[in-house]
């Protein structure tokens, strides 16, 4: 279908036609272009923000999932550890108890020994003192008796010798008292020395033992508590199961 002549004419004339737009037209277009130019960077920024947020979410997600995986692993480890702990707690407490018993026994023994020692130290001394005193008294008594006898003998034999004898008596008593006091002083001086020597080592040992015990006790108490809780839980469970 060929175009009609009037169509050709129309086309030619219309294509040659030029209609000048108003002066405002360019200003409007300019304004519109500037608006879109202002918007464009915003759009880009928006995209940047969106991209950044996506990246951020991905990072957070990856971290979160990694963290999730790790706790699971750690839980597994914990479970393993718990099992070990359980096993250990089953084994350890008895051992610890035994150990503690042993230590307690040892300590008590030590204490007893110490006390025995002390007692032994004290008692022999005391008894010694006592015995010495007794012996001394006896000796004094004997001496006195002997002196009396002597005196009697002396009285009987020589009356002049009485003051001398009396003096000798007095002298002997004083000497004896002095000797006894000296021995007592010597014993007393010896006693603290021995006490200090023994007590220092013992105290150090005791302190060391106590320190160790305090640490041990903490551990033992903790283990015991956990063990007991586990025991109670297991017992409850078993009871429930039995009931069911």
């Amino acid at each position, binding site marked *: 279908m060929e175009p*009609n002549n009037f169509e050709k004419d129309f086309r030619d004339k219309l294509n040659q036609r030029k209609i000048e737009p108003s002066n405002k037209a360019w200003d409007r277009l300019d304004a519109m272009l500037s608006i879109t130019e202002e918007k464009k960077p915003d759009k880009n920024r928006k995209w940047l923000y969106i991209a950044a947020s996506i990246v951020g979410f991905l990072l957070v997600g990856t971290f979160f999932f990694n963290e999730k995986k790790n706790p699971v692993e750690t839980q597994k480890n914990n479970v393993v550890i718990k099992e070990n702990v359980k096993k250990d707690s089953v084994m350890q407490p008895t051992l610890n108890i035994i150990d503690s018993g042993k230590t307690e026994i040892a300590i008590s023994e030590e204490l007893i020994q110490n006390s025995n020692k002390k007692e032994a130290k004290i008692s022999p001394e005391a008894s010694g003192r006592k015995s010495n005193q007794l012996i001394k008294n006896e000796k004094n008594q004997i001496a006195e008796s002997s002196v009396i006898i002597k005196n009697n003998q002396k009285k009987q034999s020589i009356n002049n010798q009485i003051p001398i004898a009396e003096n000798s008596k007095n002298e002997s008593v004083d000497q004896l008292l002095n000797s006894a006091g000296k021995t007592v002083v010597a014993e007393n001086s010896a006693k603290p020395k021995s006490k200090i020597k023994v007590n220092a080592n013992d105290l150090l040992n005791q302190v060391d033992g106590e320190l160790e015990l305090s640490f041990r006790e903490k551990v033992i108490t903790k283990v015991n508590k956990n063990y007991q809780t586990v025991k109670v839980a297991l017992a409850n469970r078993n009871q429930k199961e039995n009931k069911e």
Partner: protein
Amino acid sequence: MKIIHLHQEETEVIKLAVENNRQAQQQIYSKFSSKMLSVCRQYIKDIQLAEDVMITAFMKVFTNLNKFEHKGSFEGWIRRIMVNECISYLRVQKKVKFTEDEIYVEESFNAIDSQFSIEQIQFLIDALPDGYKMVFNLYAIEGYKHNEIAKMLGINEGTSKSQLSHARKMLQTQITILKKQDNGTE
């Protein structure tokens, strides 16, 4: 040589306009705006509305200037954008409905030597209903084929053909009336 130089100048101006160089954009606008307003005026009777449509079409030209592949003529590319903008305006604003009558008569029009002024031609086109006008402009003035017009307007090819025949018929009657009037005046 001069043509090549001009072409080179045009490509350079386009490149600058792509980079939002306002002077280059204004250069393109001032070069094509009068022609493009004429194109828009073919479709839209109101010159103010035609200008509005032209401005929005120029906005599309500048925002999509990076998509221009320098294969065809730059003017033709701009013109196509203008035509599309006019059609979309008419379709959206005026809600043009094409009567789906596929009965079209291929009439062989008598060769009318139309020596009309451009104002008369525009008057004749303006008198056409929007549907006829669009198809006639696209086919007779822009040189699109029926299948292209059918795609552009979202209608059947047959509808495009029938619309064209109706437009031609109307125009012919209008031309004869005008000629009679002209003869009478003469």
